[in-house]
């Protein structure tokens, strides 16, 4: 059982960490140093043995990979202890993570890859430095070849699925944590979610990356959150006007580029879709970044702050998205229907309770909207009936 080899490696490794953490300051520095290297060398012997006997099965790979990673951690930790290194945990984490990284390639260990991802994410969270925001992309890219190799080997393995989820989760957390350093946190994270969402829809040679489709879920949820904030708390997005929009500008250009390539790649397929589905695809994948782009152009170049009532536009956008998703959902998938209904109802709910419009205006708006719904419903039912009749004929 693979779980036993993982648990075994974990226990032995942690035991070694604890024994070393006892701090043998009564021993001489040289002896302590030797002590720090002993487990590491043992792990290396194990790996060489694995190579020699060609024991590449999951038990050996995961076991040695995990054990090796832990001995690396403990070796560096012990050096920190011997020399009383200051408690800057972040650098320790980065160094250890980078040392662990090759283990996923040489031991083919998914556990090592997960440790690496967790370590890098931890490093992201623990530094007060946001200049490394683009390092994340690079650090995460380093694992991707491994994931691809493993997918070719056996794409149905449980640990591999876990690794892919860990990858997405860590990437998501790392970015969101890092983005808090920006004044324009909300817009940045919205853009990021959108980036995830549209990247996940890219196809190469008609081959969808199966695991990338997972990204759509957090991406879309994040996108919705941002839209709600923009629609209901416009004061939170006003930071964009306070200068320093250049980083966002670059970011949004990248996103626009990707969403444009998405459009170019998949427009052929989209056109074959029913019209509502086509509109929905356009709305979520293309119109949102364009909206923000226009907003930024407006602020950066024309220097006109809020010459357009932006929150109104976001409100309309949300409403439109909700309606389109419901109609699309009625025609095809249940998920779209549910999400669309959720969007609309939460929109109504928030507008009803938190709006500053007068009661009269709100009342009239709601009645109008209600009538609109009833009419749409009536038309839809009629259409469905006709569709059913057509089918029967």
């Amino acid at each position, binding site marked *: 059982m693979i779980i036993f080899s993982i648990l075994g490696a974990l226990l032995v490794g942690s035991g070694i960490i604890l024994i070393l*953490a006892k701090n043998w300051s009564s021993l001489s520095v040289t002896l302590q140093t030797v002590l720090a290297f002993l487990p590491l*060398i043992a792990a290396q012997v194990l790996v060489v043995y694995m190579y020699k006997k060609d024991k590449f099965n999951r038990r050996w790979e995961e076991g040695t990979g995990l054990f090796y990673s832990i001995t690396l951690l403990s070796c560096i*930790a012990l050096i*920190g202890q*011997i020399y*009383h290194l*200051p408690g800057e945990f972040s650098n320790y984490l980065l160094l250890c993570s980078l*040392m662990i990284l090759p283990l996923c390639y040489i031991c083919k260990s998914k556990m090592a890859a997960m440790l690496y991802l967790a370590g890098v994410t931890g490093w992201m969270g623990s530094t007060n430095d946001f200049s490394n925001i683009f390092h994340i992309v690079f650090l995460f890219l380093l694992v991707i070849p491994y994931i691809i190799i493993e997918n070719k080997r056996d794409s149905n393995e449980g640990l591999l699925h876990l690794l892919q989820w860990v990858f997405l989760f860590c990437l998501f957390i790392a970015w969101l944590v890092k983005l808090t350093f920006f004044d324009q946190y909300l817009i940045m994270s919205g853009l990021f979610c959108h980036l995830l969402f549209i990247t996940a829809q890219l196809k190469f040679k008609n081959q969808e990356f199966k695991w990338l489709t997972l990204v759509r879920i957090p991406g879309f949820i994040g996108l919705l959150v941002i839209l709600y904030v923009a629609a209901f708390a416009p004061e939170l997005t006003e930071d964009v006007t306070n200068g320093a929009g250049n980083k966002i500008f670059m970011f949004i250009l990248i996103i626009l580029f990707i969403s444009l390539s998405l459009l170019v790649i998949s427009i052929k397929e989209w056109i074959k879709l029913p019209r509502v589905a086509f509109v929905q695809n356009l709305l979520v994948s293309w119109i949102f970044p364009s909206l923000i782009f226009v907003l930024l152009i407006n602020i950066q170049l024309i220097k006109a702050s809020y010459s357009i009532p932006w929150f109104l536009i976001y409100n309309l956008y949300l409403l439109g998205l909700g309606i389109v998703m419901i109609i699309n959902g009625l025609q095809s998938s249940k998920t779209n229907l549910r999400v669309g209904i959720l969007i609309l109802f939460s929109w109504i709910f928030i507008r009803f309770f938190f709006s500053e419009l007068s009661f009269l205006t709100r009342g009239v708006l709601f009645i109008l909207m209600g009538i609109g719904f009833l009419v749409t419903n009536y038309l839809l039912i009629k259409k469905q009936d006709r569709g059913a009749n057509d089918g029967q004929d």
Partner: protein
Amino acid sequence: MMGRIKPKWVVLALVLLAHLTIPLILILNFQIVLGRGEDFKILARPIDPTDPFRGKYVALQLELEVPKWISVSASAETIWVRLEADIHGFASIIELTDYELKGPGVLKISHPNFRRDKLILPYDRYYMEEGIAYQAEIVAREFSDSTYVVLTVKDKIGLLSGLYLSGIRIEDYISLLEKNEEQ
């Protein structure tokens, strides 16, 4: 017969070697600092927490007063500090800049931490054997005016080389205490 060495073995060897050399380079650097560096004494107030990975240590709070004539914005990412020892060996800041300083006794500090007119040095922990660390905290309270660390500085790197109670290494002091109790 000499067979061709497979590339996977070369890669393996390189990784294994790197894993050994990186820690060794770290150690070598630290040994050079400790061996050839300059010593400064800094008053300390030790207390006793634990680090799950790296074990027992006493937390130190090392502060140095920043002279009034020096003005560097507190938001500087990295600062350079020149230390000078008085006749008793205790350190004081004579220069503090946000550009690189050269010469002996210079420390590079990233993300410096200022508290009022004092600079908190980043050397905040002194590792001790399990069981002793708490004792150290108690003993150090008795010597609150004469507890100090020795910071060895070379090439802008500083390393703690000892925690002293009025001139005696704390490890020695505690083992002396234990011997007295046995007798």
